[in-house]
């Protein structure tokens, strides 16, 4: 008699009484058989548990009932034990994903708190306190370093400073690591060509008369050469500078900030990389909205046709890693120092739309078949202004075959240079979108 057959029949309640006694006698005398029984029991329990864990996705249920034209029952995926059983099954099925999701959310919340909470950013808050918004001119070292880079359409301080020499006497050149807002600011009257915030007014020209929109960059470079000075260009081509700079939104009060500019929340994306097949297409649509920071930032320097959007192609590697190329149209707030045509130190602010190209590497923390898949993503890229680094934490929610919904928080930092100095600008975005598996 095959002992395994006896044990199996016993576990299936199909062993006759007399053979059951016989089996017990054997078990009593045989350690190996007892071990085999234990292994069978363990194996049976595991298979039963596995069977319990297998439930069709809600999307399948909805699809079936939709195709036959009936509304899906609310608890269709639950077994006969009702709602409580269904909830338990759901939790059991997605426990791993939920745990990872909670962990990811906590980390994300901590990062967000650090980035946006002014209590944790006292230095920034202190720099901003009591600083007049209107003052953009930096009266120091007038014409000192000889750099004359300018851009048409930049948010520009008053360029005509009456009694400038007396003003500059009060100031000394700022040390290199000093932030802009720590410097004393002048209270010079605004010129005719600027509004009260120092922005260039629509249809008007600067009092200096040396700058006209669209041609300033070229002319300034030429002028710098004529003076025999070292030319230092803004890493941002003149042709890209915003023609619609002087918009009403641009005239909002501008908060004085440090080199690192404002952060914004709320980006949107639709993307479509591959999940199962290896190669796929990403299509992203993004949007930004200002986060609650002290003082309103300036408005968009230009209103492009298709802003905050991106296109990308991704390759899935091993089910958990996604490598993709991204092309984005996005806005970055920029704030930097320069010297205008009159040799006055000024602080420029602009909020241009930039075209960024980058490579993104995404790692999912759970298997492809999980419904909730937390992930982290790092991106490196560049645009007309400079280099960009991004980090994102997010969750992917499987909506059915071929479709995932993404939700994450992404921090992007732009590094750009002007007049030999390097500046940074960061923004924080809520990242959401759809992912299509091709």
């Amino acid at each position, binding site marked *: 008699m*095959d002992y*395994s*057959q006896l044990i*199996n029949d016993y576990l299936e309640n199909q062993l006759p009484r007399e053979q059951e006694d016989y089996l017990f006698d054997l078990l009593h005398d045989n350690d190996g058989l007892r*071990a*085999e029984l*234990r*292994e*069978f029991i*363990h*194996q*049976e329990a*595991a*298979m*039963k*548990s*596995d*069977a*319990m*864990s*297998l*439930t*069709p*996705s809600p*999307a*399948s*249920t909805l*699809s*079936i*009932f939709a*195709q*036959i034209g*009936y509304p899906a*029952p609310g*608890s*269709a*995926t*639950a*077994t*006969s034990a009702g709602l409580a059983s269904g909830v338990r099954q759901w939790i059991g099925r997605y426990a*791993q994903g939920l745990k990872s999701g909670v962990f990811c959310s906590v980390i994300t919340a901590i990062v967000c708190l650090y980035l946006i909470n002014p209590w944790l950013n006292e230095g920034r808050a202190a720099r901003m306190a009591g600083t007049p918004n209107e003052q953009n001119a930096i009266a120091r070292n007038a014409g000192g370093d000889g750099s004359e880079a300018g851009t048409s359409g930049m948010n520009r301080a008053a360029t005509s400073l009456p009694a400038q020499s007396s003003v500059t006497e009060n100031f000394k050149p700022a040390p290199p690591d000093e932030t802009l807002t720590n410097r004393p600011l002048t209270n010079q009257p605004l010129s005719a060509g600027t509004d009260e915030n120092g922005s260039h007014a629509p249809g008007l020209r600067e009092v200096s008369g040396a700058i006209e929109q669209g041609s300033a960059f070229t002319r300034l470079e030429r002028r710098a050469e004529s003076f025999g000075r070292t030319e230092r260009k803004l890493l941002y081509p003149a042709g890209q500078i915003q023609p619609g700079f002087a918009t009403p939104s641009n005239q909002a009060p501008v908060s004085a900030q440090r080199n690192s500019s404002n952060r914004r929340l709320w980006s949107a994306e639709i993307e479509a990389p591959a999940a*199962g097949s290896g190669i796929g297409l990403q299509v992203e649509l993004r949007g930004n909205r200002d986060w609650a920071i002290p003082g309103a930032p300036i408005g968009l320097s230009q209103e492009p046709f298709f802003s905050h959007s991106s296109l990308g192609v991704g390759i899935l590697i091993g089910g958990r890693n996604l490598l993709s190329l991204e092309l984005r149209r996005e806005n970055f707030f920029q704030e930097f120092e320069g010297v205008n045509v009159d040799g006055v130190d000024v602080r420029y602010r602009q909020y241009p739309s930039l075209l960024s190209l980058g490579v993104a590497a995404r790692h999912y923390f759970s298997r492809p*078949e999980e419904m909730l898949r937390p992930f982290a993503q790092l991106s490196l890229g560049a645009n007309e202004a400079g280099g960009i680094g991004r980090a994102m934490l997010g969750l992917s929610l499987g909506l*059915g*075959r071929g479709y995932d919904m993404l939700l994450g928080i992404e921090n992007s930092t732009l590094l750009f240079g002007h007049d030999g100095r390097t500046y940074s600008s960061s923004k924080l975005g809520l990242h959401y979108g759809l992912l299509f598996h091709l």
Partner: protein
Amino acid sequence: MATDVSKLTDRQLQQQLSSKGDESHAAFAEVYRRYNTRIFAYIVRVIGDREPAEDLFQETFLRFYRSAAGGREGSLCGFLITIARNLCLNHKRDRKVTLTLDAFDFAEPQRFPMEDREFMDLLRRAIDILEIDLREPLILRVYNELSYEEIAAICGIAPASARVRVLRAKKKIRSILSPIIKELQR
């Protein structure tokens, strides 16, 4: 007054499915509620891949609905399994994937006790590498709780053969998992 479909037998549900309107809908919903997890478990374990299993699962119930409208007699679960089985066989025929024992390093026992989740993964992989002739009766028996007679009818074999195949499948899995179970039980 509406009938409480949850109290109907499979045969009564079958009859109600042949009717029209809300009664048919209620009957189908009840059949779905009773058997969706069993059918899904069967398909997933036979196919071994969750993503195509979702498609086959949907197709199974859609075909069942269309066929049931014709007033077919017999066991509902058996009928559903038969539909699912045909779809699975077609799927496997179209997409031949062979997993060999060589690809699965189970001989080396784990040095440390494994987590339950890892054990379950190993169990699934052990089921996946079983030959279909053994795997299917095992799934029907353990996952779908069918009798050996029902298994025999579905697989087209004798009940005694079904019994032998289930036992052989269990022993094969045990031979794979035994080192790990021993480790877990220490």
